């Protein structure tokens, strides 16, 4: 068990180190001079040179890499070129939008998908199964940003139930904030839920064909009971894998969904920072997102071990 955890930790760490090298390298070849960006095109060469020295842009590459990584480790992500405030502050301001958005949509998607998938598997071949699978087939095909547009049209433009975009902040209480995150969360969650429901169904069907399900039935327990007691936990393993992968999709989805709804979140921040060549912000946010993907996948690996005693034993 400890060896299993240590190995997964090691892999996660290695992935992070590799990722930091890739991010740093990409930023290195990205065209654009931060000093010029900050001082404008009328700046003198002397002023530019001075600022470059001050920002450490003239230091050797390796030195800058380690300074960057070392800074991140103690929470210093540097200062944004365009906002002239510390990156960590920007991230903090934006995370209070993106984090609730991601969490709400993850919960929403899981709560919808797993019961629906189980329901369909339990009634395999019935009209209910066929229609549920038809709907999920459609759901998988819908791009989330188009779905978001439809939701805006239906609920914001037509029914006027929720705002069409923007974010009022949390200072006015929880409800106004949550209200403006509802549509984005649904837009993110439903296409993911469609995928997850299909995975749940096929994982359940796979497990229901196993020998030990027959053994359980031979004990005299009805199908329904066997489904809950024996099939679900085994089917959870592939479902968890997909959920882990989906988390990365979800994060990527926030980039586009936050753009659709004009939400001041991390996705929008990184998108704007890229177009403005605000490298230090891009590096910081990307590493943060990559780290959260790695951490979530680590958590998924550890959950496997809880679900599956065979993994626990692989000490």
């Amino acid at each position, binding site marked *: 068990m400890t060896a299993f955890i240590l190995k997964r930790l090691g892999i996660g760490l290695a992935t992070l180190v590799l990722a930091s090298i890739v991010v740093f390298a990409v930023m290195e070849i990205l065209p654009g001079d931060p000093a010029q960006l900050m001082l404008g095109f009328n700046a003198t060469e002397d002023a530019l040179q001075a600022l470059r020295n001050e920002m450490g842009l003239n230091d050797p590459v390796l030195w800058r890499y380690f300074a960057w990584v070392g800074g991140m480790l103690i929470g210093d992500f540097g200062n944004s070129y365009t906002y002239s405030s510390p990156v960590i502050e920007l991230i903090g301001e934006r995370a209070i939008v993106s984090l609730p958005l991601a969490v709400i949509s993850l919960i929403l998607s899981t709560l919808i998908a797993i019961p629906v998938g189980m329901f369909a598997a339990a009634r395999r071949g019935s009209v209910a199964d066929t229609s549920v699978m038809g709907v999920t087939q459609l759901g998988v095909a819908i791009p989330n940003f188009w779905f978001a547009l439809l939701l805006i049209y239906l609920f914001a433009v037509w029914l006027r139930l929720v705002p069409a975009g923007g974010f009022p902040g949390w200072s006015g209480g929880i409800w106004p904030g949550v209200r403006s995150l509802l549509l984005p969360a649904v837009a993110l969650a439903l296409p993911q839920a469609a995928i997850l429901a299909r995975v749940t169904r096929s994982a359940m069907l796979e497990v229901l064909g196993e*020998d030990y399900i027959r053994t*359980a039935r031979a*004990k005299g327990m009805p199908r329904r009971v066997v489904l809950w007691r*024996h099939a679900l936990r*085994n089917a959870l393993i592939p479902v968890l894998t997909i959920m882990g992968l989906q988390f990365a999709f979800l994060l990527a989805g926030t980039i586009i969904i936050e753009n659709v709804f004009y939400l001041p979140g991390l996705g929008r921040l990184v998108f704007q920072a890229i177009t403005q060549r605000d490298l230090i912000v891009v590096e910081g946010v990307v590493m943060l997102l990559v780290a959260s993907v790695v951490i979530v996948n680590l958590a998924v690996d550890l959950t496997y071990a809880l679900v*599956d*005693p065979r993994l626990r*034993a692989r000490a």
Partner: protein
Amino acid sequence: MSLLEIENLKLSIGDTPILKDIDLTLETGEVMGLVGESGSGKSMTALTVMQLLPHAAKASGRVTFDGIDILAAPEDAMNRLRGDDIGMVFQEPMTALNPVKTIGEQVAEGIRWHTGASRANAEARARAILDRVGLPERQFPLTRYPHELSGGQRQRVVIAIACALKPKLLIADEPTTALDVVLQAQILELLRDLVQEDRMGLLLISHDLAVVTDMADRVTIMRHGEVMETGETARTLSQQKHPYTRQLAEASVHVPDRRTKAGTDAEPLLQVTGAEKDYPIRRTSLFGPPRHFRAVDGVSFSLAPGQSKALVGRSGCGKSTLARMILALDHPTGGSIRFDGTELTGRTEAELKPSRRNMQVVFQDPYGSFNPRHKVERLVAEPLHLLEPQPSPADRRDRVAQALVDVGMSPADMDKYPHEFSGGQRQRLSIARAVITRPRLIVADEPVSALDVSIRAQILDLFADLNQRLGVAYLFITHDLTVARAITDQVLVMHEGRIVEEGDTNRVFDNPRSDAARALVEAAPDLERAIARRLAAAQ
């Protein structure tokens, strides 16, 4: 009234008829053996009694258990019967238990479900039955998971689940087919004792006539979904009135006609000296030294040209690993393997080519041995890759045709796909592939264990015939002593990676000296002896 009465049972899946007018009765405390080859419908008969048939199956006729009409019983009523009055043991112990639940949970579950006992009470009863099936608390606490148990131990858990509530009827569908002979003997003995203690009826399904003869009071012999003959075991099998019964019995003890070849003093064809193979074991601690499992441990033997030698042993004894090393598919950790005067270990593929030409292989599984996407010509011709220069296309076809004729098939078969052939025919095709380069040695790894007895007899004849005609030597890996006796002159008995006994096949099996060989011989089912014992007991 009998415990179980089956009358005129018909079963079809979709449009395919599976069972035709099955009649069968079983009394309380009686052991009924249900025997047949693949596709005879014996498993489907059992699943009908349990009402655990596939969705598309339709049954008609009458099945009565303990006065209850099973075919008409609603699902609720069946749930009350299953696991309580009828228990079932399945063939494949490795997959029959839920991997994420402890054995305690899985045994106690049925007890709680049927009796409404408290958790503690059910666990106490689960403990008692696990003790009874030979899994004592000290080594096998209730908190063990299935993956921590071996195949034989898992089968004991499955038996515990089936017998926990002392059912009136126990159905065992090939309960020992996936186990080696020594485990088979132990599990059969356990079943026999449990049935006697609780006066259960036992429906024992098996393809193995010897096993059934040893266990059953009466036998029912099935073929193609029909009952061929039914009757008291000793009489049915000693008189062999029905032609199919006779055919089965004869095939089970078939010995091909062949001249035995005494050990010659010629240069050995294969010389294995001190062969070793280690496999790394997953480390228990991150900083501990890497650990190894020694699968083959200092094995030495030699094989003369044209000789037929058996390599027997329990499952996991290292015999297949040894075979793979001889075939140069696996690198030995130590020792030397010389074939036809050439050292095989540490050679590159190119250097091995001349040796490979003279050494071919036949595997167990006639379905897994062929790439399903290629035609027979290409499949059988595969070893021609070893020839230099490469034969012309016409020459290739000639050689394939000759190889097909050698194994009793027609040259026209070369344009077909492997799925167009039956299991026995496919095994002929794999033999054709093995003989096409006219090798001097064929290593055969359990080549007949997946085949029905009648097919097995034919394939053994073919092996014997090729040995005589082409002078090819065999290393025959098998767990089945009957097969070893039928086809080999010499035997090697392997146990925990070592050769523990060797000599003339008949002498070793008639008079085993090592413990391992004795255990194998005592456990091995033997039809003739079983019939003799039955007759003696009847008098």
